[in-house]
């Protein structure tokens, strides 16, 4: 057991998987000698060599497209988009090929590959570095979209993503990269994709969150439990797509109240799908309108105003209160 940051835990997963399986390769911009701009791939090139840890030209389309070719031809590529904001340069590859290669070839050529990308606001980053675009990928059939909320799960989810038979978009909330440490067991641990978890049990309100919004959502839940005796059940999605809705729709049957917290913009955001699932499955149990606690429908402002843009604990608490009304 060792206490690790999310960066270290991801690095640990990559190293173990590369040791376990020779077909695993890592490619991306600056993933070699410098170990990635966030150091997630630190040291891998020394251990596994330049053929398996590939510093690519600055060219996202070929990083993703070539990964597909590698995946079809016996490798297990894990490619990195330096920031999620540059994954759009590869969107045609993702949408037109990666997501549906299995489907197009009637099962002949599946694409077991992982596209890793740091995403999200809150670290005073430059323009175009702070978006939260999980819906871009979640809307595409054939992709799995995974977002960890802490070091230990980051490690065990990445392991599952690498071993998954289908392409996985692995989004890393960079606000959490070094925010806190957790015990990460040395032994293998793989959290199944497509399985959310209850991060906190409660009987009064069901809240769905993931990624960087998860820790602050749990904090608010703890605070109002202590201050007001209100017990909030927090469901951590972990896999955004395919969406594991049962845990939260069933929770709503118990609580009668629901809210969703996300840092993506509000309209057409992931909250819409979550609310729809609750309406479809647990409508008759609802006692109040469901609340969406989200960023507003504006581009992420430059960093001086990003704290105001992101749902903070105040707004989360207000949203909880609104969800509990009636």
């Amino acid at each position, binding site marked *: 057991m060792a206490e690790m940051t999310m960066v270290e835990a991801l690095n640990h997963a990559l190293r173990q998987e590369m040791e376990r399986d020779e077909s695993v390769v890592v490619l991306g911009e600056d993933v070699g000698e*410098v170990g990635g701009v966030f150091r997630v791939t630190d040291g891998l090139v020394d251990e596994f060599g330049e053929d398996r840890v590939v510093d690519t030209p600055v060219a996202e389309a070929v990083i993703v497209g070539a990964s597909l070719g590698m995946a079809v031809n016996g490798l297990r590529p894990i490619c990195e988009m330096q920031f999620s904001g540059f994954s759009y*340069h590869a969107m045609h590859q993702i949408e037109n090929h990666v997501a549906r290669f299995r489907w197009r070839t009637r099962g002949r050529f599946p694409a077991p590959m992982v596209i890793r990308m740091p995403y999200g606001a809150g670290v005073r980053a430059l323009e175009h570095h702070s978006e939260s675009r999980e819906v871009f990928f979640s809307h595409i059939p054939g992709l799995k979209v995974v977002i960890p909320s802490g070091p230990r799960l980051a490690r065990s989810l990445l392991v599952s993503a690498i071993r998954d038979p289908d392409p996985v978009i692995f989004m890393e909330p960079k606000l959490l990269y070094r925010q806190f440490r957790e015990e990460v067991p040395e032994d293998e641990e793989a959290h199944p994709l497509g399985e959310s978890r209850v991060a906190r049990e409660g009987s009064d309100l069901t809240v769905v969150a993931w990624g960087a919004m998860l820790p602050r959502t749990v904090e608010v839940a703890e605070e109002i439990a202590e201050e007001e005796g209100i017990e909030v059940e927090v469901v951590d999605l972990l896999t955004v797509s395919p969406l594991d809705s049962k845990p939260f729709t069933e929770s709503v049957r118990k609580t009668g109240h629901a809210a969703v917290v996300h840092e993506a913009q509000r309209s057409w955001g992931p909250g819409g799908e979550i609310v729809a699932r609750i309406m479809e499955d647990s409508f008759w149990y609802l006692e109040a309108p469901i609340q969406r606690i989200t960023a507003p429908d504006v581009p992420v402002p430059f960093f001086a*105003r990003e704290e105001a843009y992101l749902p903070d604990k105040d707004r989360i608490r207000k949203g909880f209160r609104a969800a509990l009304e009636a």
Partner: protein
Amino acid sequence: MPREEMEVAPPLEYLSILDEEGDLDQELEPDLDEEELVQMYRTMLRARRFDKLLLEWQRGGRIGTFAPVSGQEASQIGAMSAARDEDWFVPSFREIAAFLWRGGDPVDMTLYNAGWNEGVAIPEDARDFPISIPVASQLPLATGLAYAIRLRGEDDVAMTFFGDGATSEGDFHEALNFAGTFQLPVVFVCQNNQWAISVPRERQTASETLAQKGLAYGIPGIQVDGNDILAVRVAADEAVKRARAGDGPTLVECVTYRLKVHTTADDPSRYRDEEEVERWKERDPIPRFRRYLEKKGILDEGEADEMTDSVEEELGGVWEEAEERIETLGGPDVMFQHVYADLPPHLERQRKWFGTDEEENDNG
């Protein structure tokens, strides 16, 4: 049915005028007026000084991440000075020197780097594009500006800047091809500063030069010593002239060097030798140009030193001024401005409840 060598493109040229001692090939020396030469030198000094200040402010936590320009002043000012004010400036993210040449306000750039959207507001009469962070994404934009110039029968030029790494992106190739196909008035200025973050130029492409990439698209390419401001200026003058005359785009590769970090989030000691940096410091474009100006009798030593001091003094108040400006800026709801020409009703509602106790679910 022969098999023979084809002459598909003109041979590539390399241009250097000024050596490290400030001596030159007189036949190649451009005929520039003294006042402009002094202005070019002064802007180089301003860029170098401003870079230093930004670095200090970043280290002190006053501003966020930024990409320093040091070492690339000759490439940027040599190229930019070949354009007129009415021409378009389409930068990437490292064009501090070109920005200053264009008359950009260091206070604006400071605001931008301190995380305020207001810092990138483009002055009414400026034909300057905002900083473009997604690598190479600005090249297609410049191409479109140039298409409009041609269609509207104007004789302006669009000049766009980017790095060696940018030549690997699809946007670079698509833009060059488009500009070549329609013979558009664009000048593509590639600053080959030897590194794309940690990836050296040789690992970016197997091409011997970057200039030759233009040839594939039917665009003349030229490689110049990017630390020789006169050589860059001559190449850019030719490119601008060609574009203005309706004879299409040019790719200018400036061979230069990034003397500092990639951005302030970067640690170059992980991937490059200090020795290499030291070697390039000897080719620093600023002292080289100063020697030339002194040898020509345009500036004497005293005047050159004085200029360094006056630049320091001029930029000395930038942070205070930026702070004063920040005091006057609006609150968080500034982020709702300029999303659309007219704010749609749902956004109007969001703006109203923003930071208030109103119910979040109210969609208006």
